[in-house]
């Protein structure tokens, strides 16, 4: 029963309970300062994760009965860092948001923590049931957070749509797990892998796998299961959307990576082809539909669908280099998307809304905000010397190696299409005269965070070797 492997999750549970208590004790005035506590909590978790390093490679086995359900391998350890980083930035985003959330801001941070817990569990999951539980933990907190602005009809609608779609997808997920359990007799990944090692899967298992992939496809926003994304991104409060677009999507991809590359590895011919078709459809859908958008959050929603396409393209290569490319792409996507959403959060109050017209002349009113959004969007578009370019390049390279040139062609065309609508935003910021004249004041912490994000994008874009080396050592199942 080696507890240290679960240390981070335990610390987080303690954190959740601690938050619950402090929230009950603190008066309304001090509630505004609760984000400092949450931030400190995440930093402590970072320490615990760092402290956990000697236990990498072991798994949590209560009373040594049967297969491990929760494993702390390098893969999980690396991605937990990324989850913590995402949560750190999202918490920084919520500071601006506290006025809107009003009285129950305490609960918001609690839900953030439970979402983080779900993500951390998903990173090192090694059993279908635990996967289901972790997924539901993450999704439930996101349902509630999506509908958090109780007074705003759009937020409620977003929460509702996310809930209904989420429950249908978890219904399918459970049904899939039952089919897999039925054919194999166990739900943990090790036995599943041995069962399918021969390469032939019984029909029921194939159906089960597909339903599980559908459930995760919903999480990652792959095409047939993506319809909720634009509406929820537009309606939900922006920090939640940031968490959704980066955290929940990364969790989905991490689980997919683990499932496809360790459990269903022998059957890669099948899911390789399916994922290729899905990725082509996802890329085209996301990038084409984003062109006529007028709301920036909705535009970023469609763009995140587009990026899901690229991630699936990386996965469809069914090669180790492909997995590393997906890892790198996630890293780049994380920095770029967080930068973009951070600006959207800070700007939406002052600029008064999320319509693209409100961003006219932002570069005159606040050069730093405009520069961050400029760098973030161009990194998403895949322009060197930024991170997105290297991510896209590696994914395309992996797909060329896998021999699917038609997919590479579609991926290439999508770079040009995506550049169009990203430049539409840049056009508004730089080319249009400013709407309001008074400059936007940005408080020092946000300024530091923005500069750090820009630095991150540039660093990941220019210095590629350390990250690639870390990823290649991490992604080994």
């Amino acid at each position, binding site marked *: 029963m080696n507890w240290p492997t679960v240390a981070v999750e335990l610390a987080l549970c303690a954190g959740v309970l601690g938050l619950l208590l402090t929230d009950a004790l603190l008066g309304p005035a001090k509630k505004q300062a609760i984000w400092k506590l949450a931030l400190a909590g995440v930093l402590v978790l970072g320490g615990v994760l760092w402290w956990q390093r000697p236990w990498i490679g072991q798994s949590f086995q209560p009373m040594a009965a049967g297969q491990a359900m929760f494993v702390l391998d390098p893969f999980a350890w690396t991605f937990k860092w990324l989850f913590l980083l995402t949560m750190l930035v999202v918490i920084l985003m919520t500071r601006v948001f506290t006025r809107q959330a009003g009285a129950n801001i305490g609960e918001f941070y609690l839900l953030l923590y439970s979402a983080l817990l779900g993500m951390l569990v998903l990173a090192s999951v090694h059993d279908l049931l635990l996967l289901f539980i972790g997924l539901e933990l993450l999704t439930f907190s996101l349902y509630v957070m999506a509908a958090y602005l109780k007074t705003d009809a*759009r937020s*409620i609608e977003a929460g509702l749509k996310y809930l*209904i779609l989420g429950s249908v997808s978890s219904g399918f997920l459970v049904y899939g797990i*039952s089919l897999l359990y039925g054919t194999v*007799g166990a739900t943990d990944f090790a036995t599943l892998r041995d069962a399918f090692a021969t390469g032939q899967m019984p029909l029921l298992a194939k159906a089960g796998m597909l339903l599980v992939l559908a459930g995760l496809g919903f999480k990652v926003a792959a095409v047939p299961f993506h319809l909720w994304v634009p509406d929820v991104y537009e309606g939900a409060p922006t920090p939640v959307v940031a968490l959704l677009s980066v955290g929940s999507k990364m969790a989905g991809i991490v689980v997919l990576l683990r499932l496809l590359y360790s459990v269903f590895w022998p059957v890669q011919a099948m899911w390789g082809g399916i994922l290729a078709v899905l990725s082509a459809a996802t890329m085209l859908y996301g990038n084409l539909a984003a062109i006529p958008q007028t709301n920036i959050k909705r535009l970023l929603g469609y763009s995140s669908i587009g990026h899901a396409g690229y991630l699936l393209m990386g996965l469809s290569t069914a090669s180790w280099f492909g997995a590393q490319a997906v890892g790198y792409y996630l890293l780049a996507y994380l920095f770029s998307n967080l930068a973009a959403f951070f600006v959207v959060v800070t700007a939406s109050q002052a600029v008064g809304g999320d319509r693209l017209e409100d961003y006219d002349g932002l570069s005159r009113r606040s050069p730093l905000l405009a520069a961050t959004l400029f760098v973030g969007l161009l990194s998403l578009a895949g322009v060197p010397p930024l991170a997105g370019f290297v991510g896209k390049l590696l994914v395309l390279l992996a797909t060329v190696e896998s021999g699917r040139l038609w997919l590479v062609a579609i991926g290439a065309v999508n770079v040009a299409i995506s550049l169009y609508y990203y430049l539409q935003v840049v056009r508004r910021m730089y080319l249009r005269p400013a709407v309001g004249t008074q400059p936007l004041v940005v408080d020092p912490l946000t300024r530091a965070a923005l500069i750090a994000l820009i630095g991150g994008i540039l660093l990941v874009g220019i210095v590629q070797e350390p990250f690639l080396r870390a990823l290649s050592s991490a992604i080994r199942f």
Partner: protein
Amino acid sequence: MITLTHYLVLSALLFTIGLAGIMTRRNVILILLCVELMFNAANLAFVAFAKSLGDPSGQVIVFFVITVAAAEVTVGLAIAILMARRLSTLNADEVSLLKW
């Protein structure tokens, strides 16, 4: 003689009815009901498989699925109440502010 297939066919049918219910009924609460129905169908499948495999872990999974379904219902109903109060309607198709 009742075989495993009978149970699985039954669970599949229940699942489909739940799914049909979600897509046809307009009232959000009824949609949540149908979701419950889908989860129950899955539970039936789990128990049937546990029985045929002679391995009790299937039933433990059902235990967890029930708790998740219950949690689902609480959040669902909370949002339904919020919707009824704020948007003064419970019909899913009248709620389409966010589109295109």
